[in-house]
């Protein structure tokens, strides 16, 4: 009874302190509780309450002393341990005392009852978090059985996990330990610094690069290297260096600023998010760099976020910025939004909790009852409705989130997602947070799609989840793409894809081709599934085993994928065995096949085919196709060789043409070689007698008696067979003419002149052709008579005139006294050399000269023989030479060459005719006759007795 009374009295003594504490008057409460403890020095509760009051009164040392006293007085009570842990977790010397404190707390855990142990464990975990021992804290929380946590403990545990995660994230931004360079390295760095200052950035860069290699974590070296790179204009390298620096020292504000500036000014859209992140880091570390807000505005505009740009510009203005660039960016933002872009009515700054709200939030965390905690949190949210952590904590204790908070966060998708995450961790249902996430998606908050996909999947909305995942995968900078892929595998109906193939691909991505083959095997043979053949081929190709890869693809053909892969491999390793597949690929419009075929053709030496395929490939291939450069080179080479070949061919052709020309020339020479009769007569006048005879024969036999009947073809009553017989029998007229001409050729050859073939002879040729045509027409009873008439006209006209004209081309030799004397002297000399008698002949020339239709040599021969004969006959007697003209019985004008002598020996024409050819008068006879003349023997007036001579028809005037 006495004890009970004592307890009641003690409780009554402590009541004023507690009341003061609840009234928020911790200092007064502490005094009251201290008084109460003095009255009851062994009261552990008094000591604990005193600790709480001192803690709230800002007297941590006294609070710690009180808590330790409470522990000493009641070592099985969990509250003093918990309060001590909470107190010490905020003290700056906790790092140094952590081990001792944790040892104390561990003892408390071992001493307290199981229900209190959970509460204490939560506090210990929080202390561990506070001293950076987050892994131990996680382990401690993980050891708790959630099923045994009560309604207040469970949200507290989840909240603690959040804090641990936050701390870990925050610690990620702590600088790494600085390197410890040697004195020499420090000196080298100083030297490099001097070089840079001396405007030798390249020299400095070389030195500092060596230092960075030697001391990879040496921030000073990286900073200097970044400056050197900046000085040399190597911006990409500088950005890379700055990234390294910010990884080593996340608190290096200058590095962040420079990196943000480089990425903003020189990076494109793909670098925009990195630029903004760097600028945020820089501003977070150094808010005075207000010009960075302008850069952020530029980045926001680049990202198509004009509202963010406006907000950044607002920050810039409020930070004292006044650059005209701000106005330009504002106008650009307005243009992007389609109107005047206004700063958000409730900027993120407005959502930030006030200091009072934060205190209330902290107090709620240490409230001694859920109700108390709820009340404090509601007060905090009244003050700052957008206080996400407070709202989540309130949900932990009340199961609801104030509407005001939701309203405050309506346009802040990121905060809504944060709230949803915290609420979910606090046990909130998917249905509860779904509207918030939906709103976050509407505000285009980053990662909102991914969050909603998770949520929808949890709600069984697979279609919606797939839609969100697809959209998320298509977003520019998904931060959780790997998680999204995993989620997809849960969402999508399991495909029939051979997972081994996917695994093999993953092994390849890990650069482990052997492992990939181990997954799917390396059997590349007929009968193996096409996909597997393709996969094996890809692995072989990955390993650089192109022939093996090609074989796999061949086996997998004609699958389009196989053909495409085969074409690509064959483009690098052409193999004629794959030609059928390559042609199939080419037919399917796979350009690579054309390149492979080109190389195969080239290997075969079929350059034209290779060129054609290469050109087809170049016209069809994508510009970045790896085969393009090679194909271009081959094409150019082939074109060059083709040109050279063409030139060679041209030369060869020219040679052929030349040969052909030679042949044709030879043919032409054969056909056209030789002289026409006109030409031949000029070159060989002695041909004329042959020509004259031939013409005479042609005129008489052919033209007169045969061709002359052609005109009868038009005469009534004339029978064609009669005309035909006249022309054809016994020998065709054309053949007769040809025969005469051939005789002429023979004669000409004997004179050293080659006459043309008759077909090319301008006189006889046409005549023969016309005659042959007429003969042909006459052989055809139905032949047109008019053509025969035409031929007849030509024969009697042109042909006859030409033949007559030819006769006028006969040689003529004019003999006068002088010429004759010369001939005489020649004969005299000859005869005198022979010992013959010689009598100077008398010369009698009618007129001044006489023209003989005889070639000079023939005439001189005739004359010489006549003269020698006369000299011989005269035997020293008289000889006379007469040249004159006369008319014969036929009325013809004759030119006469007579040589008379005084010999008494008579001579007759018959005797001359009987003389053997080849000498003397016989020779004169033959030559005279040859030249259409005749020999004459005439009596002469004394002293001459006779004259032997030659008469020739006088040439027409």
């Amino acid at each position: 009874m006495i004890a009970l009374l004592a307890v009641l009295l003690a409780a009554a003594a402590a009541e004023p302190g507690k009341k003061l504490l609840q009234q928020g008057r911790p200092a007064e409460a502490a005094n009251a509780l201290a008084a109460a403890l003095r009255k009851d020095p062994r009261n552990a509760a008094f000591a604990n309450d005193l600790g709480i009051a001192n803690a709230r009164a800002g007297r941590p040392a006294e609070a710690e002393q009180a808590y330790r006293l409470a522990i000493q007085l009641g070592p099985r009570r969990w509250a003093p341990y918990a309060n001590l842990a909470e107190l010490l977790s905020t003290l700056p010397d906790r790092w140094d005392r952590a081990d001792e404190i944790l040892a104390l707390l561990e003892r408390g855990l071992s001493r307290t009852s199981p229900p209190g142990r959970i509460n204490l464990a939560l506090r210990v975990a929080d202390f561990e978090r506070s001293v950076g021992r987050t892994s131990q804290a996680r382990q401690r929380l993980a050891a708790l059985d959630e099923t045994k946590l009560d309604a207040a403990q469970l949200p507290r545990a989840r909240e603690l996990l959040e804090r641990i995660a936050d701390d870990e994230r925050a610690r990620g931004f702590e600088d790494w330990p600085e390197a410890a360079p040697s004195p020499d390295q420090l000196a080298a760095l100083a030297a490099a610094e001097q070089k840079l200052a001396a405007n030798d950035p390249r020299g400095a860069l070389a030195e500092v690069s060596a230092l960075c290699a030697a001391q990879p974590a040496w921030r000073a070296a990286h900073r200097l290297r970044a400056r050197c790179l900046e000085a040399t204009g190597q911006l990409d390298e500088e950005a890379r260096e700055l990234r390294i620096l910010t990884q080593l020292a996340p608190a290096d504000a200058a590095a962040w600023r420079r990196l943000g500036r480089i990425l903003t000014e020189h990076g494109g859209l793909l670098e925009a998010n990195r630029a903004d992140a760097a600028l945020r880091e820089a501003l977070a570390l150094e808010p005075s760099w207000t010009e960075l807000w302008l850069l952020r505005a530029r980045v926001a505009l680049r990202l198509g976020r004009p509202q963010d740009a406006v907000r950044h510009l607002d920050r810039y203005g409020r930070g004292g910025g006044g650059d005209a660039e701000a106005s330009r960016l504002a106008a650009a933002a307005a243009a992007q939004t389609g109107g005047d872009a206004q700063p958000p009515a409730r900027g993120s700054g407005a959502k930030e909790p006030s200091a009072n709200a934060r205190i209330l939030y902290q107090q709620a965390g240490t409230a001694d009852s859920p109700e108390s905690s709820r009340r404090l949190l509601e007060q905090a949210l009244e003050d700052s409705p957008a206080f996400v952590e407070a709202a989540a904590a309130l949900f932990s204790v009340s199961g609801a989130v104030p509407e005001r908070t939701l309203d405050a966060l309506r346009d802040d998708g990121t905060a809504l997602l944060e709230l949803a995450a915290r609420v979910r961790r606090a046990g909130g249902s998917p249905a509860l947070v779904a509207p918030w996430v939906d709103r976050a998606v509407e505000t285009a908050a980053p990662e909102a799609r991914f969050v909603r996909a998770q949520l929808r999947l949890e709600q069984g909305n697979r279609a919606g989840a797939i839609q969100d995942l697809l959209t998320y995968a298509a977003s520019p900078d998904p931060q959780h793409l790997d998680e999204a892929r995993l989620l997809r595998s849960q969402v999508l109906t399991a495909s029939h894809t051979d997972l081994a193939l996917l695994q093999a691909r993953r092994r390849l991505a890990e650069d482990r081709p052997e492992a990939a083959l181990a997954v799917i095997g390396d059997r590349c043979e007929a009968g193996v599934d096409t996909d597997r053949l393709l996969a094996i081929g890809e692995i072989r190709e990955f390993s650089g085993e192109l022939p093996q890869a090609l074989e796999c693809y061949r086996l997998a053909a004609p699958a389009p994928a196989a053909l495409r892969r085969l074409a690509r491999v064959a483009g690098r390793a052409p193999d004629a065995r794959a030609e059928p597949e390559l042609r199939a690929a080419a037919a399917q419009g796979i350009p690579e096949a054309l390149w492979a075929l080109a190389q195969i053709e080239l290997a075969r030496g079929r350059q034209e085919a290779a060129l054609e395929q290469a050109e087809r490939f170049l016209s069809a291939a994508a510009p970045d196709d790896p085969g393009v450069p090679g194909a271009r080179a081959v094409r150019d080479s082939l074109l060059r060789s083709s040109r050279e070949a063409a030139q060679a061919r041209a030369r060869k052709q020219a040679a052929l043409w030349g040969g052909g020309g030679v042949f044709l020339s030879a043919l032409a020479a054969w056909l056209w070689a030789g002289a026409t009769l006109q030409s031949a007569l000029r070159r060989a006048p002695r041909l004329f007698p042959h020509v004259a005879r031939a013409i005479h024969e042609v005129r008489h036999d052919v033209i007169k008696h045969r061709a002359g009947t052609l005109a009868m073809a038009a005469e009534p009553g004339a029978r064609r067979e009669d005309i035909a017989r006249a022309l054809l029998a016994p020998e065709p007229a054309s053949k007769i003419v040809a025969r005469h001409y051939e005789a002429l050729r023979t004669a000409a050859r004997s004179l050293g002149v080659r006459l043309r073939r008759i077909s090319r002879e301008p006189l006889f040729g046409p005549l023969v052709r016309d005659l042959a045509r007429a003969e042909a027409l006459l052989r055809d009873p139905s032949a047109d008579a008019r053509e025969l008439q035409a031929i007849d006209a030509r024969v009697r006209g042109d042909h006859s005139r030409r033949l007559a004209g030819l006769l006028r081309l006969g040689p003529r030799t004019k003999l006068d006294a002088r010429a004759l004397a010369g001939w005489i002297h020649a004969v005299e000399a000859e005869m005198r050399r022979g010992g013959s008698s010689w009598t100077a002949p008398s010369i009698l020339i009618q007129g001044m000269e006489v023209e003989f239709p005889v070639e000079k040599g023939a005439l001189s021969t005739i004359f010489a023989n006549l003269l020698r004969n006369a000299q011989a006959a005269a035997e020293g007697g008289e000889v006379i030479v007469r040249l004159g003209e006369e008319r014969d019985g036929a009325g013809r004008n004759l030119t006469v060459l007579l040589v008379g002598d005084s010999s008494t020996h008579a001579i007759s024409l018959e005797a001359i005719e009987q003389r053997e050819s080849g000498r003397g008068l016989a020779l004169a006879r033959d030559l005279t006759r040859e030249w259409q003349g005749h020999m004459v023997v005439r009596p002469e007036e004394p002293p001459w007795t006779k004259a032997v001579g030659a008469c020739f028809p006088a040439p027409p005037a």
Partner: protein
Amino acid sequence: MTFLVCEDGSEYTDRFTRFLGGQFRFARAGHFAEALALAPGAAALLLDLDFRRLQRELLVDERGTPDVRATAEVQGILILRALRSRGVRLPAILFADLDDASHAARLQAELAPLRILPSSEGLPRIAQLLREVVSSATGSVAKS
């Protein structure tokens, strides 16, 4: 009406007979003696020029005297001239390619009535001349 063809062969006679035989009759004389003998029954003389195929013993000079030295190439003229010298005044046509126009003119003047036809003249023209000869002999008008 008979035309006396004087030639060393038979080409003229055959040709004329074949093509003009329906209109005219032709008699052949192979040398001067035959021509002289047949001339009285003929309406005209048709003379070849060249008699080189004729035996030399049958050659005659312009007087009709046999002369082996006589030129066979112009035997037709010599025969005509001999005939003329023997009083044969029959119209004559000499088939000769006389390249000397003055020669031809002289012959036509000396041996008239004489027409000299080149070898190129066709049978129709010859026929026309023959008709003219007939016409002049009979007084009828020859048809061209």
